[in-house]
């Protein structure tokens, strides 16, 4: 076989594998969306869940998922950003750095239920945070950090060294170079990392059962005081997220329409992540253009 034939054959093979993956993806997404879409209605999205009669909605769960996402990112993103900067710009190539890296990678492979119980015993009980969104957000930070650090570090690494040298040559401090030159260059990659980790937050259930809880108290969307117990902004209230809700109706749900609630919720979840993906990508591109001055 000539190299050219090999090349053609290999390309076909790669395309074939990609085709299989695409088919699997289409099947999965199609299955979820087709079986879920008929159950989504305005009523479904805007009414509270019902524990035993049919016709319950997912209003509170939907809001909780989004709120939890925001809180988790507020806690984990700065931490991840700082650590990634340390690892990519400051850390020396020695045993200590590689120990840190290993530790962070191990963090990501912990089973969710272990992190959930750890969060339960430490934050919920020991620190008296109670079953709360905050406890949930801290527990999710454990999964989030490795993913975020990896992707931020990767995108910082991908910035050519000439950029760093240029910054230093201009007399800027290291920190200034990082802030003003490296971060904007790395921004699209960082955003991808955030999107990926956001997906994980949306889909996580096991860790939240023991931390954020699996029941949603009735929320008052007109109460903007974050310290009131019924306020939707209160980070100290228990909160059932959409993924936990799906788990609950599937396992112990006694509502007669459990199947359709679960299908509808899954579809809503997918659609939100889809919107989020495209939105973040669009913003990322715009920011990148603005910051790098490119047209």
């Amino acid at each position, binding site marked *: 076989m000539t190299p050219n034939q090999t090349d053609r054959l290999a390309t076909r093979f790669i395309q074939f594998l990609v085709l299989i993956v695409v088919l699997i993806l289409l099947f999965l997404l199609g299955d979820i969306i087709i079986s879920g879409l008929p159950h989504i209605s305005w009523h479904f999205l805007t009414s509270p869940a019902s524990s035993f009669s049919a016709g319950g909605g997912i209003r509170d769960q939907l809001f909780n998922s989004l709120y939890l996402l925001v809180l988790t990112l507020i806690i984990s993103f700065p931490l991840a950003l700082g650590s990634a900067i340390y690892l990519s710009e400051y850390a020396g190539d020695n045993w200590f750095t590689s120990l840190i890296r290993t530790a962070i990678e191990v963090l990501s492979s912990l089973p969710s239920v272990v992190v959930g119980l750890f969060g339960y015993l430490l934050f919920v009980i020991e*620190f008296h945070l109670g079953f709360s969104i905050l406890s949930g957000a801290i527990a999710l930070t454990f999964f989030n950090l490795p993913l975020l650090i990896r992707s931020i570090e990767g995108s910082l690494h991908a910035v050519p060294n000439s950029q760093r040298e240029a910054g230093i040559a201009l007399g800027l401090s290291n920190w200034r170079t990082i802030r003003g030159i490296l971060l904007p260059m790395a921004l699209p990659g960082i955003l991808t990392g955030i999107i990926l980790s956001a997906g994980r937050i949306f889909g996580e259930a096991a860790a939240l059962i023991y931390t954020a809880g699996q029941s949603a108290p009735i929320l008052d969307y007109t109460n903007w005081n974050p*310290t009131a117990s019924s306020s939707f902004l209160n980070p100290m209230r228990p909160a059932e997220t959409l993924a936990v809700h799906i788990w609950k109706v599937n396992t112990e749900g006694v509502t007669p329409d459990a199947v359709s609630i679960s299908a509808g919720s899954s579809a809503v979840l997918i659609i939100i992540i889809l919107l989020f993906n495209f939105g973040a990508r669009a913003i990322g591109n715009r920011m990148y253009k603005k910051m790098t001055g490119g047209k």
Partner: protein
Amino acid sequence: MLMHKKTLISTLVAFSLAGLLLGGCSSNSSSKKSSDSSDTKAAKVTKITAVGSTALQPLVEQAAQDYQATNKNVNLTVQGGGSGTGLSQVQQGAVQIGNSDIFAEQSSGIKAKQLVDHKVAVVGMTPVVNPKTGVKNVSMAQLRDIFTGKITNWQQVGGKDQKISVINRAQGSGTRATFESAVLEGKKAVTSQEQDSNGTVQKLVSTTPGAISYLAFSYVNDKVNALSINNVKPTDANVTDNKWTIWSYEHMYTKGQPNKATQGFLKYMNSGKVQGSLVNKLGYISIHDMKVTKNAKNVVAK
């Protein structure tokens, strides 16, 4: 343009820093907040947390919602986590109420004397089989032999020529403890598939040919066949006089005598409002309808 860049970057960094501070502070301030509220509002709002049995959770959760609508001075949180979690947490005093499917006496590691039992409902359980097995009734001895692995084909109990596949519940779960004490007479169940939730078991039994497992009454639907045992049908009425023997209480445990607010809620759980309608709606049997009692050693008395 340069200015533009700068402002954007500094906002980005400022945002992250603010986030970091907020992340740090919010945990501080919130712990302060919660201690504040317990100090200043102690007279007004009492916080009650109930954790434990996932089977009991829907009932308590709904009752708690109704109760809070009229009693603004309590703040009830109801969570799952499993009976074991409920019992160990209430024993440690971390929560006020521990929900459990089993008697505290039946689980090792729990000092049952410290805990006060409040029975709030009864759950009936029934063996269920895949509809295609063609079996409607078995004797108790046959059922025991199926779960201990002595009978392995449905033909042996008058069904089709099909291998029996046993789906058990998680070791240590309340459902399994109840089933084994009523059916197995101390014999050991065959090691087989295990699932820990009613929903999953129901799906598995309805799709796996030759499958047998057991479910709480409320999860039995038309896709699975509930078996009669010795020609007794699994109905609520048969449970109340112990003709149907596979049933258990749902317990809400408190450590010592409960405080006033907790007592108020437990009283509500036992009132006609809950026992008369909610309990039945959620598929349990009211504690008031029972004509017999069962103690922790499974001795039934009239």
